[in-house]
């Protein structure tokens, strides 16, 4: 099956700086593809190249198999939902949604019917006569999507469209966007710096850093099997130790941290004794216990003092300072066992080597 969108060896330079550095990816039809990265990593540049507002320095962009490099933005079968939505404030909602259809010279009655259908589809029937500024943030969001979707594009680009919404609405819109994508059955390419948006909605996520794709995969891949230290640090939370490799046996290894601890971990990629390396352990992979006996099954064990309890409902954390003086973040189990835990308490913590990922080279 031809992918809906395919970029090969895409490069974009602005003078001396390389904003997008040799990026290749393909998006299968009907899927939700996210590009996730910190601000300034080049994700917006990729999107603007796909939409046609920027020309790539080199490389190719193909939509449904055909190169679109020579197609101007107004002729490309892609539409874009802008960061601040860019609804036309001088028009009513119906005129906004009908704008693209008017450009296609569709007869008036047909436009009116399509606009009504689109409004039904986004769950806002009968608001066609209203002005843009009479709508709430979430409604504008849906209108912006409907305005693109009436044109039945091959690919819909979304440029951090949830950024301007408040937290509650953003949570709600995540679910809604996914539902809209399923309803319209169109390929969505979504860019964001918010990992939770990407993880919740996407079929595939590309993590981008400094103009390159670090890793492309499902949310689970990125979270549980990060391939680079950047991905391990960017997706989810992680405790980190830097050090030098003591010994390696296949995937299993032991690293001596800079503070002198010996740690068991699993290697991501080939590694040899003496390499500098970094270990990542997620707070939820660390087991908290009152006594050392309860942790006997774990490869790594430490003891320390509770320095702070960060209560955040189900995502509550405890900060534990180990004997070497380093502070670790540990997830606080909500089973009631540690309800009495308070600052200054002595605790034991432990985690398995399989949960500790070790990357070569310290960053």
């Amino acid at each position: 099956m031809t992918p809906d969108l395919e970029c090969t060896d895409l490069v974009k330079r602005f003078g001396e700086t390389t904003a997008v550095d040799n990026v290749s990816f393909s998006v299968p039809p009907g899927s939700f593809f996210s590009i996730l990265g910190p601000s300034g990593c080049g994700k917006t540049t990729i999107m603007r190249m796909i939409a046609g507002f920027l020309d790539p320095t080199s490389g190719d962009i193909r939509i449904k198999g055909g190169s679109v490099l020579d197609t101007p933005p107004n002729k490309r079968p892609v539409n874009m939902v802008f960061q601040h939505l860019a609804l036309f404030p001088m028009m009513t909602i119906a005129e906004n949604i009908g704008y693209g259809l008017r450009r296609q010279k569709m007869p008036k009655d047909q436009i009116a019917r399509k606009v009504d259908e689109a409004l039904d589809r986004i769950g806002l029937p009968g608001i066609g006569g209203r002005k843009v500024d009479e709508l709430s943030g979430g409604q504008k969001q849906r209108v912006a999507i409907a305005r693109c979707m009436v044109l039945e594009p091959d690919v819909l680009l979304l440029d951090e469209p949830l950024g301007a919404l408040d937290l509650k609405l953003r949570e709600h819109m995540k679910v809604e966007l996914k539902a809209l994508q399923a309803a319209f059955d169109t390929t969505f390419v979504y860019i964001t710096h918010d990992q939770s948006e990407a993880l919740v909605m996407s079929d595939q996520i590309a993590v981008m850093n400094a103009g390159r794709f670090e890793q492309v995969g499902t949310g689970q891949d990125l979270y549980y099997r990060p391939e680079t230290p950047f991905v391990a640090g960017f997706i989810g939370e992680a405790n980190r130790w830097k050090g030098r490799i003591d010994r390696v046996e296949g995937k299993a290894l032991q690293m001596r941290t800079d503070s002198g601890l010996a740690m068991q971990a699993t290697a991501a990629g080939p590694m040899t004794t003496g390499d500098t390396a970094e270990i990542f352990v997620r707070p939820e992979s660390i087991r908290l216990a009152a006594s050392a006996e309860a942790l006997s099954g774990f490869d790594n064990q430490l003891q320390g003092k509770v320095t702070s309890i960060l209560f955040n409902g189900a995502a509550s954390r405890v900060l534990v300072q180990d004997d070497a003086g380093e502070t670790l973040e540990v997830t606080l189990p909500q089973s009631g066992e540690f309800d009495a835990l308070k600052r200054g308490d002595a605790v034991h913590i432990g985690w398995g080597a399989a949960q500790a990922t070790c990357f070569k080279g310290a960053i």
Partner: protein
Amino acid sequence: MRSHARIGFILLLTPLVLWLGLLIVIPHIDMFLISIRERISFGVYETSLAQYEKALTEPLYLRTFWRTAVMSVLATAITLVIAFPVSYYIAKMAKGRLQQVLFMLCLIPFYVSELVRTFGWMILLRETGLVSTLLQWAGLADQPVEMLYTDATMMVGLVYTSMLFMVVPLVTTLESLDDSVIEAGYDLGGNGVSVLREIIIPHAMPGIVSGCIVVFMLSLGNYLTPTMLGGKDSLWFTEMIYNQFIVRSNWELGAAFGFMLLVLSSVIVWGMLRLTGRTLQETMG
């Protein structure tokens, strides 16, 4: 507390009331009273509409009146057509320093008095002027060319004088248009013409209307440019007012002319607002 606020309000309002009252309302009432009287003999006056009758029946007066109106509308339209691309370039396409420099370039001619600027045009366009000399040197003309004292020259002067007053409101409104809205216009299939018609012009409408009103009023009330560049062949209504007041000491007729001009500008501005479906409040606020 309330009485304090009241006193403050009155104090703030006083300069405005004084300005409006002493400089605008009272002179206009006086002017109106002068315009509706007729001199019967030395020191004897009678109330009548004779001045307005004279103004509306004398072909020279009436022709000049309409000519001034039509030419002012034309000058406004030409100014808009020239200023719009200039403003669009300054507001949307020029970036950073270039933008400031271009805006300054529009502003700098206005540091000089209008009289000097108009003399500048005369130096360029007179028979022995720069343009005429250049044309002869290039062999495009075999004798000195007089380019002053025509309607076209006067129009050039009027447009030049008004340019800034159109560019400033246009740049301000165009700058407030988000670039992504224009991009969205293209992204959804629009071309240059439809984006201009459906997005840029509707957005710039408040600037267009307020710019047009200011330029129209300035042109209509302009005295210097038509007198210096238009000469005798292109009579402007303000020249006739001046003549009645100063040259002929006929204050009654001059006042009547003044009132006709006031009514004319009010009607045309009102018509302009009606045509674009805007209120004065929206345009000025």
